[in-house]
């Protein structure tokens, strides 16, 4: 078992949790304003493609991230306009965005990169990894903290930033107020629509980062539907964490942990079907627990009145 539970598992957990973390934060910020962002998957997929394309063309990962974030914002704004301005149901527009992303990236792959299925190239500038030379000779620190991808560190910073924004600023208070009771917020003079647009833009930024990290940090390639449900896992983690960035992060770490342990267990002859089932069993359990907690909270809140 020492080959399954060892020090490298810690970093493996972070590595597989980070793409889900960005997605979960992308869903968290909108959920606080009562917008269920199932378009996370589509935002992520589009920006993953845009990131690879820009990185390949310009050779700069920084420009690639910026353009990916921009594309994330565009996708989020499409949803925002449809939902906020024209009252389209958020679930419908979310599904539409996901399908659109699948198609547009497939098209873009053929049109701009002249290939289909997958695109890999040594010319794709990857997001650099942070190598701390001082850790080289300290076994534990080296194994756990060295060679993190820049976006992996940034993801953790974003957790704190988002928490601060939501729970320690006036703006955050207003967002949460809009999420709880939009009518009351409007009566209090809060511009609900403007706030919802702002929230969607931030969600686009986070979704864009999620995509860029997936195709330039976690790997250096683009493949059709490279997200493969990671955006939806993010939405599940957001539910698990009850919209609190720290709990959401904990949720994604759990997902990452299960995934990493699963990957390692398979090599030890556990049936693949069983191991591959684990993340889904876990997702259902997590959602059930989240629902149960929510309903208990509501009962408590009601009994206080």
């Amino acid at each position, binding site marked *: 078992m020492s080959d399954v539970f060892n020090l490298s598992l810690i970093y493996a957990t972070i590595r597989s949790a980070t793409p889900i973390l960005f997605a979960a934060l992308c869903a968290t910020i909108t959920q606080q304003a009562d917008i269920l962002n199932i378009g996370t998957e589509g935002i992520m997929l589009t920006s993953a493609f845009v990131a690879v394309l820009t990185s390949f063309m310009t050779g700069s990962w920084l420009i690639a991230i910026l353009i990916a974030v921009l594309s994330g914002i565009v996708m989020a704004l499409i949803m925002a306009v*449809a939902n906020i301005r*024209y009252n389209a149901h958020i679930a419908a527009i979310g599904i539409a965005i996901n*399908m659109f992303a699948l198609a547009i990236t497939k098209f873009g792959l053929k049109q701009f990169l002249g290939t289909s*299925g997958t695109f890999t190239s040594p010319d794709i500038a990857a997001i650099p990894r942070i190598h701390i030379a001082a850790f080289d000779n300290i076994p534990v620190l080296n194994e756990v903290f060295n060679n993190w991808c820049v976006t992996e560190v940034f993801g953790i910073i974003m957790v704190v930033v988002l928490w601060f924004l939501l729970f320690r600023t006036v703006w955050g208070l207003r967002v949460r107020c809009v999420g709880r009771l939009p009518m009351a917020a409007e009566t209090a003079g809060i511009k609900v629509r403007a706030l919802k647009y702002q929230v969607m833009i931030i969600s686009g930024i986070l979704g864009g980062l999620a995509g860029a990290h997936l195709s330039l940090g976690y*790997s250096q*390639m683009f493949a059709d539907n490279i997200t493969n449900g990671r955006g939806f896992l993010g939405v599940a983690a957001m539910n698990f964490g009850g919209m609190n960035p720290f709990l959401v992060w904990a949720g994604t770490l759990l997902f990452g942990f299960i995934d990493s342990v699963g*990957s*390692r267990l398979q090599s030890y002859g556990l049936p693949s079907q069983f191991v591959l089932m684990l993340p889904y069993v876990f997702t259902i359990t997590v959602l059930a627990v989240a629902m149960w907690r929510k309903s208990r909270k509501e009962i408590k809140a009601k009994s206080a009145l």
Partner: protein
Amino acid sequence: MKKRLLAVLMGCVMVIGLAGCGGGTSTGTETETSADTETAADAETSGDPIKVALVYSGFLGDKSFNDLAHDGAMRAKEDFGIEVQELESGEAADWEANFVAMADAGYDLVIGVSTQFQDIMEKHCPNYPDTKFALIDGVSDAGDNVVSTLFAQNEGSFLTGAAAAMFTTHTEIEGVNEEKIIGWVGGMDIPVLHDYFVGFEQGAKYIDPDIQILQSFAGNFTDALKGKELATAQINQGADVIANVANITGIGAMEAASELGVYAIGVDTNQDSLYPGHIITSMQKKVDNCTYQIIESVVNGTFEGGTSTYFNLANEGVDVTDFSVIKEALGDQFPQEIVDKVAELREQIINGEIVVDYYEGYGDPANQ
């Protein structure tokens, strides 16, 4: 008014999105109609070109199995002036629909490009007695309008397994560790992949009975990141050579090997140059030749339903690459003994001195 306009627009977006997902089906019908209108004109002048449909259980661009079938079909298109239609889909639910759509559309030859079409063909082929069918990578006894082709992936994998087992002992090569552990990443847990693995394991154990092989399945052929994760886990557990049999998922596995400075083995196509210097060799499955030959047989009128062809080392239906890319990258460090030994084993398999095990339902149909 504006709202109604938007609703219509949204409807369009959804429909386009759905069409994109269904992939082939819509394109299928399109060609069908255009072909119908042409038929009348064509029939008078030059006669119909032979129409061939390829149905994939995945997508093109896998730089592997599907792309090979595509190459073969394109070569046939150039040589024989046939009409080719290709339907791709990653969704199991679409495979049957796509296949039936093509059979319905009156194609002369419908090819199911993957063992996944075996059951589908058994169910539907008898309903279309005038259409010719071919199954690549599986045996179908669906009727006398169906040909099957089978590959001896176990024989090819025997050689790559042996190569991996030898490579992992050469600790003087950068990235190769002391431990005699090699990894194997598969796509879906389906019989044909076990046929690969049986050969790979036997080949590795033939060289070194004590070798440890880590085996993982990703559960799909399309999630490159999952492949990368599985390969990384195996590398963390001491594997320094990772063989993949996983199409797009496998590209992720090979990326992991190249990123972490270890080595990988390609599959189906010659993947040696995908991550130069990190791919030792590739187990080639000549799906392109096979597809070409099937189409050729229809063009020449030699198509013989109810038969199956076995592609193995002896008739060069499977093979390993010549190690040239890794040789160039490693220079003098590359152990020549691997190439020599693999060539020797190859001869021994061909002349029957070594009998490679196969998974249930595979192996040469002539011997069963």
